[in-house]
């Protein structure tokens, strides 16, 4: 039997060759999922404008105390129910005070101070009209966006943390544990949550004094947690499904063959792939949460005056529509702000899905 040539010897390469090959490999820059997705998103005109719009809107709402707009809670008895007056008719005037504000945080108070230092007591005119108590609609819409965006982000974060952890654990463990965990989600799914939430919020209302004084928890915090606790369900399902399908895919196997540790596999291979779907789903959760806030505010169980939110504003607007007179601006502007934001989020979600879907990678 003649000795076959040793494959290792036959294919061996010199150290110099190996170094050259490695150096060549190092020069090739792989394109990460994210830079690829970013490029793709920028090319999608609609989604890109929606992203810019949302960014501008968020910035406006964060910087609301700095803007020279009237106070959203200042009652002006000689300016009740003024129809919108565009800037070229009435640009602005004096009269800004900070007296009527609710308890703001330190940062907001600082920004208000800065605003007074810059603009003094000058404020814009009632560009979008005033409501039944003479409060400026523009200011209320902008300040309302703060609450709505905060509710949405807090709930989204809650659902993100619970949902991703739960879903990924369930999917990765598999077997019995997975089965049990998913059955629990099924049980929770079939509970009509709006009823339970309303029930919970009424019960929390009984204890609000205690919670507020001893634990510093107000109704809004409960509100965020409760909403987040509902919306994690779908997130968990989505993440689990994705993890299940990825767990046995070739690139995970390849990573394992190379000798990557389990942690590396999870955090560098599984999570980024799951993350794209999670982000897409988040852009769909946020509109749902905002609508839910409006729903609860309508029933008188959401954000409480003197604070403002889009839901509350829309409710005020709805009440202002009667057969005798139609104060359309009270319902139109809050609805437009809310509708516009949710529309942008929807389009952005679609755009993100197209940009992040790995199956579309490399194609145009």
């Amino acid at each position, binding site marked *: 039997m003649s000795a076959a040539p040793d494959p290792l010897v036959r294919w061996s390469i010199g150290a110099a060759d190996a170094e050259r090959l490695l150096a060549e490999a190092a020069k090739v820059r792989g394109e990460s999922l994210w830079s690829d997705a970013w490029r793709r998103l920028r090319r999608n005109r609609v989604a890109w404008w929606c992203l810019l719009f949302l960014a501008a809107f968020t910035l406006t709402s964060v910087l609301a105390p700095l803007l020279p707009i009237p106070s959203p809670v200042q009652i002006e008895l000689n300016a009740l129910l003024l129809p919108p007056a565009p800037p070229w008719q009435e640009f602005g005037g004096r009269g800004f005070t900070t007296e009527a504000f609710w308890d703001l945080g330190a940062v907001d108070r600082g920004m208000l101070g800065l605003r007074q230092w810059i603009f003094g007591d000058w404020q814009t005119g009632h560009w979008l009209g005033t409501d039944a108590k003479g409060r400026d609609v523009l200011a209320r819409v902008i300040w309302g966006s703060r609450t709505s965006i905060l509710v949405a982000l807090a709930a989204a974060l809650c659902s993100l943390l619970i949902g991703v952890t739960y879903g990924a654990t369930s999917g990765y463990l598999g077997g019995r544990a997975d089965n049990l965990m998913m059955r629990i989600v099924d049980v929770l799914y*079939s509970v*009509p949550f709006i*009823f*339970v939430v*309303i029930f919970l919020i009424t*019960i929390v209302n009984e204890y609000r004094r205690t919670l507020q004084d001893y634990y510093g928890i107000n109704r809004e915090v409960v509100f965020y947690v409760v909403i987040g606790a509902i919306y994690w369900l779908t997130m968990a399902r989505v993440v689990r499904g994705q993890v299940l399908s990825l767990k046995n895919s070739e690139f995970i196997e390849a990573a394992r063959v190379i000798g990557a540790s389990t942690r590396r596999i999870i955090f560098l291979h599984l999570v980024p792939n799951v993350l794209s779907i999670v982000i897409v789903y988040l852009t769909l959760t946020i509109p749902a949460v905002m609508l839910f806030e409006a*729903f609860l505010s309508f*029933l008188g169980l959401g954000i409480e005056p003197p604070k403002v939110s889009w839901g509350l504003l829309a409710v005020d607007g709805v009440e202002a529509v009667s057969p005798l007179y139609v104060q359309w601006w009270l319902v139109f502007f809050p609805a437009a702000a809310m*509708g516009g934001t949710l*529309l942008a989020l929807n389009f952005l979600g679609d755009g993100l899905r197209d940009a992040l879907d790995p199956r579309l990678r490399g194609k145009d």
Partner: protein
Amino acid sequence: MTRFLARRLAWFAITLFVVVTISFFLMRAVRGGPFDGERRLDAAVELNIKARYHLDWPPWRQFLHYVGPFNLDEHRAEFLGGDGGRVFGGVLVGDLGPSFRYRDFTVNDIIAQSLPISVLLGLVALMWALSLGISAGIASALRRGSGLDVAIRLLATGGIVLPNFVIATFLVLVFVFMLGLLPVAGWGTLKHMLLPGLALGAPFAAYIARLTRTGMLEVLSQDYIRTAHAKGLPARLVILRHALKGGLLPVISYLGPATAGILTGSLVIERIFYIPGTGSHFVNSALNRDYTLSMGVTILYTVLVYGLNTVVDFAYTLLDPRIKLEEE
């Protein structure tokens, strides 16, 4: 199939038990009751009221009494030491107890009065959602890329992104104040049902339109549709008989969530249009601290939503043989 139903039933029992237990103990844990008014009640009166609603019993007994199936008050069965006047009672036999607020009514009375109204409203809304949604979806799929398609898609997105009370307000503005066609609120005749039904069904119509459009577009590009066209069938027949069957499958699977959404959405719509349905009772009971009523309605809706979802899943497998129940 039997296995599927049995499993569903078992999980249903667990779900219901969880909902009942948690809400019962939360309810009992609440410090202020529905009887704490502005004025403090006389001690004797308070004792009487507590005895009337069995609030003087230990919690476990109240719970067992509430859940059933055996009645535990003085008319309980003889083997439990009562006079045997009313052996059964509690949620398990469909008895949701007395209302805390409406002293002369039981929760069952209130639900029996109001549920038919809510169901009727829900049916009208579902009808609107299906008829508007499916026809708009088909039209938009057939005229893909045309002005009609763009208009329908914009309207549909609007229906999804606006809260339904805002949609209701716009509808009232147009149909009541501007056109004067329909009454503004109330309940009783068909005219009263149209507007609330439309307002309630609008977001679902929008979603169904989107689903139908996607489903139809997918089906229309398939070979058997081309074959049907090629063998000379009239276009109307191809669409109605061949394409619609496959194109509507996503809509059917959405019917379960849609019905649940319509049921809960009626909380708001009933309030706007002053409709005396279960939803408005629920909201009032939550605001009035009428815990037995709000718990009863929560249980009722859990049953309804769960039952409807099971029926829809079941129907789905009949329509699409590729789906197997056991694999869910």
